Structures are given as structure tokens and as C-alpha cells.
């Protein structure tokens, strides 16, 4: 468990260092995620990498444990609303309205794009 968490933190740390060092416009944890993915894929190819938390489902279980409580982690940022009460009193309705309309449009456009491209591809495959 501790070794698995350390591996996850190490990936994030490596991601943060790389992002700062090369001034990449990518968030450190996202790079850390790619690094962990590469490690998991390497493990299947080379015995050299199948060590410690990368064997016996160690890092997998730790990761699933974290992801099971993803909702919880947004609460501290959300409670930050108490600092913005005067701004919300002035513009609250407009902000909530803008966000609500935007999220509906985004959901709609994304799901329709996914389905159309997916359908075009299966049709192309069945024709050829």
C-alpha cells in the first residue's frame, strides 16, 4: 500500500519536475498519469519492471482506492464559494446561467460528435 502510494506520488513528482524544467503547458499530474501508464505497459513486456508495487495488483488497488472517492476531493475547492459571496450576490444568477447553458451545449456536442464519428467508422468498415 505505502509502496504503491509512493509510486503514484513519484510519478506526479516526476511530472511536476518535467513540466517546470521544460516550461511545458501541461499540468504535472497529467504527465504523471502518462508516466504511470507507460510503466504499466512496460511491466507486461519486461520482467525488469515487474517489481514492488508494479506486481500483484499493488498500484492498481491503491489507484482504485483513490478513484473511489474522487467526489470527496472537490469539496474543499467547492467550499471556497464562501469567499465569493459578494461577487455571487452581484453576478450569481448570470454565472450559474452561463455555466448551466455551457455544460448542456458541451455535453450535447461531445456526445453527438462521438456517436457520428463512431457510426461513420463502423459503416466504413462494413463496406470495405
Amino acid at each position, binding site marked *: 500500500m505505502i509502496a504503491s*502510494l509512493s509510486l*503514484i506520488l513519484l*510519478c*506526479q513528482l516526476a511530472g511536476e519536475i518535467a513540466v517546470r524544467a521544460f516550461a511545458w*503547458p*501541461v*499540468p*504535472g*499530474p*497529467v504527465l*504523471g*498519469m*502518462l*508516466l*504511470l*501508464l507507460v510503466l504499466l*505497459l512496460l511491466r507486461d513486456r519486461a520482467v525488469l519492471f515487474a517489481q514492488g508495487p508494479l506486481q500483484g495488483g499493488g498500484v*492498481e488497488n*491503491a*489507484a*482504485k482506492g*483513490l*478513484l473511489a472517492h*474522487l*467526489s*470527496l*476531493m*472537490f*469539496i*474543499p*475547492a*467547492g*467550499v*471556497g*464559494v*464562501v*469567499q*465569493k459571496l459578494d*461577487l455571487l450576490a452581484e*453576478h450569481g444568477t*448570470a*454565472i*450559474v*446561467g*452561463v*455555466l*448551466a447553458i*455551457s*455544460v*448542456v*451545449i*458541451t*455535453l450535447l*456536442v*461531445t*456526445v453527438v460528435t*462521438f*456517436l457520428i*464519428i*463512431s457510426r461513420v467508422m463502423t459503416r466504413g468498415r462494413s463496406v470495405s
Partner: protein
Amino acid sequence: MTANPFSLWVYLSQQPLLWLTVTLLVYATADALSLATGRHPFANPVFHSMWIIAVFLLLTGTSYTTYFSGAQFVHFLLGPATVALAVPLYENRKIVAAAIVPMLAALVVGCATAIVSVVLLAKAFGLPQNVVLSLAPKSVTAGVAMGISESLGADASLTAVAVVLTGIMGAIIVTPMMNRMGITDYRARGFAVGLASHGIGTARAFQVDAVAGVFAGIAMSLNALVTSLLVPLAVTLLVR
């Protein structure tokens, strides 16, 4: 026992312990209630925890800084949780590889829609420029969005609130909306909610369907990448 309960409160209310306990306890209760309603969209645990804790802070006159001294331990986990998304991605790599083209198309189109729609709507509603900039990265996960907001010189704490509100709204709306539209492809449903509503949408997707959860997680992480690149561009074209 202390003679004066007030001095005990003064002591505890300045300690991280109390606020960490409050955060976990309120969330555990809200989550149990959500489970009891069969994961009803309106029983969203993030939404209910957020307002209950906010009201509690206002009633006790506690500053957000004091609250955050305890809650930061939970907030910190957002980073490791993003790294942890590599695991569902790895385990479902075959389904993901098979859907790579529709995913990338939906990613680029959806990400651009999320940014452009919020910027144009915010301007149309006459919101001040600083607010418009703070809302622009609202569809990505909190840590990333706050970073983007800072680099734009906008208000990162307003961005965090916009991110959480967007997440909650998407998580509430997605299931009834997709059911009404008759969409049964859980890859597409998950991808859309992960892209529009990041981690809160992803948590919702995992409640509904495992495949939807995986695609939501992928959309959320890819969107963090693309949004960091697109927001500065969109802001230059649309705002300045």
C-alpha cells in the same frame, strides 16, 4: 473537563483536525444518503456537502483559510487521483484503442465548445472581463483549471468555484438528458460527462456504469491537456 466550553471551541476551531473531520463526516453522510436514494442525480454528494459546510462556516464565523488548513489534506489528493487514472486507462486499453478516433474527434470538438460557449455566453450576459477569464477553464479538473486561471491573471479561487459548480451541474443533468435522448452507448455518455464535468462527472459516470466511468476518466485527463493549450488561444481570439 475545561470549565469554559467556549475556550475549547476557540482552540479546536483553529486546528486542522476539526475541519478535516467535518469534511469527511459531512461527505460520508451525504454519500450514504445518495446511496440510499439509489444514486438519484439530485442527491449529488459534492453539492450537498459543499453547501452544508459553507453554511456551517458562515454560522460559526470561520474563515475559509482556517477551514482550508484542515481540508487541504483532502484537496491535495486531487493530484495523485489524476495520476491514478492511468490504471483504469491501462485496464481498458483495448476498448479505448478501438474507440480512439471518435474519442479524439469528440475531445477536440467538445473542448473547443466548452471554452468558446462559456466565453461567448459570459460576454453576452455582460459579465466583467475578469469573471469571463476566470470562467474560461471551468470544464477541467480543479488543480489544472486554477493553474490556467493564474497564468491568465484571472481569479483562481473564482475559477475553483466555477469548476465545482460546472461539475455538479453536469453530473446532475447527464443521466436524465442522455436517457431522454435515447443514447445507450455508455462510451459516448461517459466521454461527454468526463469532458464537460471533469472529476465530479467522472465520479457520477462510475456510479452509473463501469465503461462510462473509464471513458469519463480518459476524457477528463485528455481534456486537462487540450484545455491548457486551447484556453490561452481562445482568450486571445475572443476576449482581448
